[in-house]
């Protein structure tokens, strides 16, 4: 794994939102590494900062109220945060593409899907309109849209959610990006459609070899897709390891509790209550002192309430932000 070249290296990223009610530290010191051709999962609950991380990489944080206030995002060794708007625009949609959660609203309703895809192609590849149309139809074919010639001139509202998400993928992959960011791309879809899209993404990843950053709250989705998994909680990464490590020997109490608390559909029914994590995700305006998980953590000590733990490499490739990691 590590012999592959590092594609993206995020160091201590901090993105804050300045709102009427106070400052929201949506991303507060996130570190993340993505190697070339690697599938990386970023998992967490709402408000953990996973989507903001993705938008920070794309430099699409709405400002105001959001602002990247610190850290570096290295892409091929160059800090994206130091680039000007024009330079970042040439990377966006070309080297790094992104697909979003809501396939129903992510496409412009007044242009045909053909227009919208070929727009991206002509922009980054400087080719002729007829050539772009040919390429668009190829892309539609690649993402498994039947009758791509007819579909070219259809409007988004004439398609189902699954089809629109395929269009989004076609658009994102049209310029052969090195990194595809998928922000909850299958969350709004039905299970059987989700299976189709995940299957498609896996197939395309093998074929085209791009790296994928999968952002989701669904542990099962990353278990199936990702090589490496990062667990985020309240704006920080709390655990990072290979997929197998995370699921087989979670070391952070949050990861551990989360995995225990989700029902397994492969197991027979018992009448036992699920081992739930008590309490709730902290309000972004009132982050707890010390470790952010301490109010919900069964192992929390005085130290956890006072001091904030650093992220430590417990075993090679397995990083945990905890004073009292669970012994495997």
């Amino acid at each position, binding site marked *: 794994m590590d012999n592959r070249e590092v594609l993206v290296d995020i160091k201590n990223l901090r993105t804050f939102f300045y709102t009427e009610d106070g400052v929201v530290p949506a991303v507060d010191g996130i570190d993340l590494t993505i190697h070339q051709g690697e599938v990386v999962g970023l998992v967490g*609950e*709402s408000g953990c900062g996973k989507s903001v991380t993705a938008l920070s990489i794309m430099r699409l944080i709405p400002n105001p109220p959001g602002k990247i206030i610190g850290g570096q995002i290295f892409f091929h060794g160059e800090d994206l945060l130091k680039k000007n708007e024009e330079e970042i625009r040439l990377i966006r949609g070309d080297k790094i593409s992104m697909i979003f959660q809501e396939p129903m609203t992510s496409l412009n309703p007044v242009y045909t899907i053909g227009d919208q895809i070929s727009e991206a192609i002509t922009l980054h590849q400087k080719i002729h309109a007829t050539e772009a149309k040919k390429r668009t139809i190829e892309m539609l074919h690649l993402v498994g849209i*039947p009758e791509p010639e007819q579909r070219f001139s259809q409007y988004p509202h004439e398609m*189902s959610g*699954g*089809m629109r998400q395929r269009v989004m993928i076609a658009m994102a992959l049209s310029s052969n990006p090195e990194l595809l960011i998928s922000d909850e791309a299958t969350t709004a879809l*039905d*299970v*059987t*459609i*989700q*299976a*189709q899209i*995940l*299957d498609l993404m896996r197939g395309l990843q093998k074929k085209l070899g791009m790296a994928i950053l999968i952002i989701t*709250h*669904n*542990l*099962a*989705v990353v*278990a*199936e897709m990702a090589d490496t998994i990062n667990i985020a909680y309240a704006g920080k990464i709390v655990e990072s390891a290979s*997929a*197998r490590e995370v*699921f*087989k020997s979670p070391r952070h109490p949050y990861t551990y*509790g*989360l*995995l225990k*608390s*989700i*029902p*397994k*559909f*492969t*197991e*027979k*029914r018992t*009448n036992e*209550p*699920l*081992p*739930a*994590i*008590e309490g*709730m*995700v902290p309000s972004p305006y009132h982050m707890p002192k010390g470790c952010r998980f301490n109010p*919900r953590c069964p192992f929390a000590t005085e130290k956890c309430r006072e001091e904030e733990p650093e992220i430590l490499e417990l075993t090679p490739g397995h990083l945990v932000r905890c004073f009292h990691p669970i012994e495997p």
Partner: protein
Amino acid sequence: MATRLVEVQKLKKWFPIKGGVFSTTVASVRAVDEVSFFIDQGETLSLVGESGSGKTTTGRTMLKLLQPTSGKIIYKGKDISKLTPNQMRPLRRNMQIMFQDPYGSLNPRMPVGDIIREPLDVHSIGTRKERQQAVATMMETVGLRPEYERRYPHEFSGGQRQRIGVARAIIINPELLVLDEPISALDVSIQSQIINLLQELQQRLNLTYLFIAHDLAVVRHMSDRVAVMYLGKIVETADNDELFDHPFHPYTQALLSAVPVPDPDVKRERIILQGDVPSPINPPSGCHFRTRCPYAMPICKEQEPAMIEVAPGHTVACHLLTRK
């Protein structure tokens, strides 16, 4: 022998679509199309299916929140399908519903105490003081501090709001509770709290649940029996373990295989269905699933498959059963 609480027979709910020059009914959305099932006292029947399968409409029509197009809803031996809204009102005490959206299901302009108390007000149960007491007790029961009764919904988190939703639904001691995707809008770490709450309440209060869901892992954990819906029809019904261990209908099989498993070591044989769910306005002839079914045969196009019992309590509607 368990007592039958509710039985639904050939329930149909079509929504007309107006169109044309004179705004006449040009077509219908066949949301629920001749669905039959029953629920015994104290059990949990889960209704699973994808969006557009009609599971939510089934639940709401069963409660008469929507007027059924045709079919019978037999509640404790009495057909309630033809009752008027006024005749239904006293019966509403016995059957309640809890909703998916923790943000949309509570009136943002009402304090939570009023929200929870409203069923008692509407049915004129108890004195003012008794109602107040009941609200406080109920808030504790669902894990909320009674002091918060003057607070407004926007001050609560998603999980807490679902607790308020449960409290409102059970304060008048219903027998039947329709749970319409009660946890799917919640954060993962909160879902298990609500699941546990629902299960504990069911045992304590002897509640009967119709659990509407698309998350099969939760369904397996929660239910006694499961009914699978596809495009307005129930295609398979069985006991929990029977259905998950021996799914028969090709759609059930595909659905089960499509669910991702949170274990990177499990590599499962996956059936990827082709295409999308057809429109319920113009469903395919014969078996509704035939357009995506890997085993489709000529007969599937011509004839609608009948429900056949393949094992005790396990019924399936598929032509593969009658092929030989």
